[in-house]
């Protein structure tokens, strides 16, 4: 169990065994094929309802442990970057997303 609620850059790393019990949305943010290491990934629900946010990792990566359902993934980065895409999550499934900015 995590002591705090903070979001480490790139999202929390988990074991393969634990992944089977979670609805994971993960991926990377790239600019011209290179990782975007400064920026934020936000998971939003219906009507733009905020769910969670993680700072991007050195590899441009992010990971969420969502409830099963449909979500919007929004990426914020310096230079006014604000882009989004639709993602779905389900228990025991890892939804991988690559976001180009």
């Amino acid at each position, binding site marked *: *169990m*995590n*002591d*705090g*609620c*903070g*979001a*480490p*850059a790139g*999202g*929390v790393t*988990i074991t393969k065994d*634990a992944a089977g*019990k*979670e609805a994971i949305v993960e991926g990377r943010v790239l600019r011209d094929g290179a990782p975007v290491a*400064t*920026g*934020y990934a*936000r*998971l939003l*629900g219906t009507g733009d*309802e*905020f*769910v*969670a*946010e*993680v*700072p991007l990792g050195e590899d441009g990566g992010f*990971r*969420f*442990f*969502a*409830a099963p359902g449909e979500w919007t993934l929004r990426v*914020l*980065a*310096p*230079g006014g970057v604000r882009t989004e895409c639709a993602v779905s999550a389900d228990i025991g499934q890892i939804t991988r997303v690559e976001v180009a900015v």
Partner: protein
Amino acid sequence: MSRSDVLVDADWVEAHIGTPGYVIVEVDEDTSAYDKGHIPSAIKIDWKKDLQDPVRRDFVDKTGFEALLSDRGISNDDTVVLYGGNNNWFAAYAYWYFKLYGHQNVLLLDGGRKKWELESRELSTEVPSRPKTSYTAREQDSALRAMRDEVVAAIGKRNLVDVRSPDEFAGRLLAPAHLPQEQAQRGGHIPTAKNVPWSKAANEDGTFKSDDQLATLYRDEAGVDFGKDTIAYCRIGERSAHTWFVLHEILGQANVKNYDGSWTEYGSLVGVPIEIGEGK
């Protein structure tokens, strides 16, 4: 208190870098961000290692807080300017913590680390060295901190504001959605609590919404009675410190406490009432 007494913007902080009497402090649970780059002249405080007792689940005591601030070169007369990641959750927690131990002059950078980064402002890897001080703290101000028995007694009498996400409030998730969900305690919320997720008080860039927007959010939309005392809680007390900051410091509500035991304590208590679902 009002917004102008407690919040500063990035331009103000840039103008005060290196100004004697002002100490910029980055606070986070994961301090690797500080190590990669921080606001020039900023020192760091580790939310876990520096502010939590290593054995008991509690804060460092008064002596420990005095030792920490003395070691970091913060004096009683300094103005402490706090900022951090996670939309300033841990910086707001530190703000509340500094107030709890009686530090007079504390400010929060609106938007925290996120806005600073998104605006591509300067970050430094140079770790400043500050001469040690002899800091004297006050006894904890019990008017700011709620303990579990007080929370149970407040059900149906005071405002209880649960600032977690709707899925955590309803019991569908046990932690924010960026964390694994395997937890020991039960899901749900304290009966009569209003669910006002902390995120509704913040703009996308991490800054706080306007006073009018905030008052409308809590009073008019959520039904928080501004004539009553209030206790805010979340899972471990840092997101609710963000809401405590909004209600007590920005909106100037008189009697607002943060329940830092929050759901990891309440949801593990034997015999206390729990409500699940969307709330009533």
